[in-house]
């Protein structure tokens, strides 16, 4: 029988490299914290027996490759179209990462993201236009305004049910749009647009390739800052606790009983993220050199939502990759007109309908489908042998006992099918062997029967009278005599025991 062995599982590939085993490895940590930069562990290579280092968490690898591509691609191509597209990608990705912090880590279903960004943009833009404040101050003002806004809109979050809060914040954008249109200072005159905001890169440089590259670089740095803030909050103690609590209301109650004030921590995370959003808003204003009412439109909010939904809700990598996809579609296929928005909507719809959590939830989903297939396969085995499987007998602690029972059952079934007059005749002719393969296997099975109630031959008078008895299995308790038959020879007695056992097997 040459059957290709079934693949049980695959070992994940991990980057590894040989190291000098005589040198002591020193773990590098992020300055000021106890967090290690990379999750490394040492081991001996099982094949070469050399000492080597293994990267156990591959995420930093993917992140650095992805970010490097994001940095180098537009700088290398250096066309205006690429600069615009990737600049927008960086800014929106930064906004989405902060939104992820609010939804995923703080667990607040807030749609006030763009409203906060807009507050930062208009506030800083207004100060820049009227008082000509320098750009570092603008960014600072944006962050302060955003934090203030975050503090104000986090107030009702404590009292309101998640959904009510979501709706309230959804209305906030519309509210802000009205506010801007009504106010003359904020550009109500120009249909909500604000022009002539100070730039980071001097405007005479902006027409050159160097200026464009530098401008793009600032957007990229903004994304990096957002990611750093995300990592700092989400990976920190409160972030981990909050994410643990977000899984269910009971966990939250339990953790509150341990003395963790969730509402306070949530508000803190929310304010940090909002300050960052305000900062990004101010940055956006200097990046574009103005602001527009588009920031408060429902359509842009929905596009941002589509980005994080396509990538995967609650994950920074999902937010970034989703942004790349959606902005890529909307900026690249400009000649498609409204159809590209339709495409984005269909993508978002598809990821809600068919995936559990966007692109980055696919892996877990596929694994689960595979597990379900396996479970179905196992269920097929169960019905074949009519015995239960480990996962179906939670009350039996020793799982090997269950496997043993399943095996015994299948063994009995097979042996039973071998019982035939020829087999019995063979045993009668030669009780002590030489046996055929099947008879030998059957006798082996009989021999390992448990002692209680095991049939044995009892010798009354040597070479004259033998009986079949059953052992009691208890010390001091004599065997019981099973019937009144006496056998003249040992061979006859052997065969009688055999017949009894065969009978029992048949009845079992």
């Amino acid at each position, binding site marked *: 029988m040459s059957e290709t062995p079934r693949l049980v599982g695959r070992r994940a590939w991990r980057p590894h490299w040989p190291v000098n085993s005589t040198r002591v490895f020193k773990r590098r940590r992020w300055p000021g914290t106890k967090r290690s930069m990379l999750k490394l562990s040492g081991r001996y290579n099982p094949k070469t027996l050399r000492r080597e280092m293994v990267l156990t968490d591959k995420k930093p690898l993917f992140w650095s490759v992805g970010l490097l591509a994001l940095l180098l691609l537009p700088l290398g191509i250096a066309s205006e179209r690429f600069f615009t597209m990737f600049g927008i990608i960086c800014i929106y990705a930064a906004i989405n990462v902060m939104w992820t912090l609010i939804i995923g880590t703080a667990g607040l*279903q807030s749609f006030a993201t763009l409203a906060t960004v807009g507050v930062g943009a208009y506030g800083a833009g207004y100060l820049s236009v009227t008082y000509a404040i320098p750009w570092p101050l603008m960014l600072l003002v944006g962050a302060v305004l955003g934090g203030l806004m975050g503090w104000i809109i986090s107030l*009702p979050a404590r*009292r*309101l*049910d998640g*959904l*009510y809060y*979501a*709706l*309230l914040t*959804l*209305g*906030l954008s*519309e*509210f802000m749009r*009205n*506010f801007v*249109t*009504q106010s003359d200072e904020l550009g109500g005159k120009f249909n909500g647009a604000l022009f002539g905001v100070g730039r980071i890169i001097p405007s005479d440089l902006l027409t050159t390739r160097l200026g464009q590259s530098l401008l793009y670089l600032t957007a990229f740095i903004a994304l990096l800052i957002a990611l750093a803030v995300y990592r700092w909050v989400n990976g920190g103690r409160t972030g981990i606790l909050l994410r643990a609590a977000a899984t269910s209301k009971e966990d939250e109650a339990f953790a509150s009983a341990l003395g963790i004030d969730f509402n306070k921590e949530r508000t803190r995370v929310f304010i940090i993220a909002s300050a960052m959003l305000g900062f990004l808003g101010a940055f956006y204003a200097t990046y574009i050199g103005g602001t527009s009412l588009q920031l408060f439109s*429902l*359509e842009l909010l*929905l*596009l941002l*939502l*589509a980005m994080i*939904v396509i990538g995967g*809700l609650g994950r920074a990598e999902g937010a970034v990759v989703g942004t790349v996809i959606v902005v890529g579609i909307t900026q690249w296929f400009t000649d498609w*007109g*409204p*159809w590209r*928005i*339709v495409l*984005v*909507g*269909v993508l*978002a*719809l598809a990821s*809600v*309908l068919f995936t559990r959590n966007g692109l980055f939830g696919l892996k877990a989903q596929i694994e689960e489908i595979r597990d379900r297939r396996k479970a179905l396969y196992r269920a097929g085995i169960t019905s074949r042998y009519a015995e239960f499987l480990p996962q179906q007998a939670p009350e039996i602690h020793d799982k090997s006992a269950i496997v043993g029972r399943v095996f015994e059952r299948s063994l009995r079934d097979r042996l039973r099918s071998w019982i035939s007059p020829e087999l019995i005749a063979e045993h009668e002719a030669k009780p002590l062997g030489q046996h055929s393969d099947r008879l030998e296997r059957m006798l082996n099975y009989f021999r390992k029967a448990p002692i209680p109630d095991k049939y044995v031959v009892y010798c009354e008078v040597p070479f004259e009278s033998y009986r079949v008895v059953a052992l009691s299995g208890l010390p001091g308790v004599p065997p019981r005599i099973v019937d009144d038959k006496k056998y003249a020879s040992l061979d006859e007695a052997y065969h009688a025991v055999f017949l009894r056992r065969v009978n029992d097997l048949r009845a079992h």
Partner: protein
Amino acid sequence: MIEVVISALVLASMYGLIAIGISLTWASIGMLNLAQGFIFTAGGYTAWLYAQYAEGWGLEGVGLSAGVLIFGMLGSALAGLFVGAIAFLPLQDRDNFRTRSLIATLAISLIGTQIWLILFGPQNKPLPPVFGEGRIEIGPAGMSYQQLGTIIVASVMLALVILWMRSSRRGLQMRAMMMDPLGAAVVGVSVRSTGMRVLAISGALTGLSSVLLAQVFFVSPTSGVQPLTTGLIISLAGGLGSIPGTVAAAGLIGLAEALTARYLQQSLVPFVLFAIVVLILIFRPRGLGGLLEDVRE
């Protein structure tokens, strides 16, 4: 003063219909239908298309008006069923239904706006006046036919829906399902078909309000956003799932809007509305509906 009351009633009837649609959908199937703006425009465009053809056939007067109303409701009901087929039926018994259906309806409204843009272009489409043009004077006050018609049609429709909910078998089933979907399954209520029925009804209500609102404004691809926001605000203030609460909230919001527009400034309306909702929600986190329930006890 009476003018203010009349204009409040008109606003309350138009936005209240949308708010009740949102509220009903939420209470019975647990889905927050943010594609209500899409459903709204669907009704408007269907009515507009009908009006185009009807004028071609030379239809006038009552036939035209009734047709506009009926086709507006029909188009929105169909759009409601469409939303249900995409965002409700496939997701209904999967985990995280609430969040996922919310996102799905948002995606539908994103797509919907663009589809209208592609089909009908960005221009505003006017609907023919349904209630004729003219004014009626009662004592010191007067109101236009349009205002009177809006109030009457909306109240009749609302009364019909409430009556139907209270006394018919389907209405009873719907209310049973709002309380306990699995328990309702035991007494023969299918969550899926009843849910679709609810979506069609709230769609029809939205369509009616779309036609009524188009008497004042126009139909355009994004004309659903503002009614959706106001409808959301009302259903929030009224307490999602409570019809009396929603009606009360619609009255309150309509009054506030009319008062602000009359005595302050039209441009201040959104701020006043927002402030009212925030105030209500701070004192009654579950909206006015909770308040009414307390009073009843």
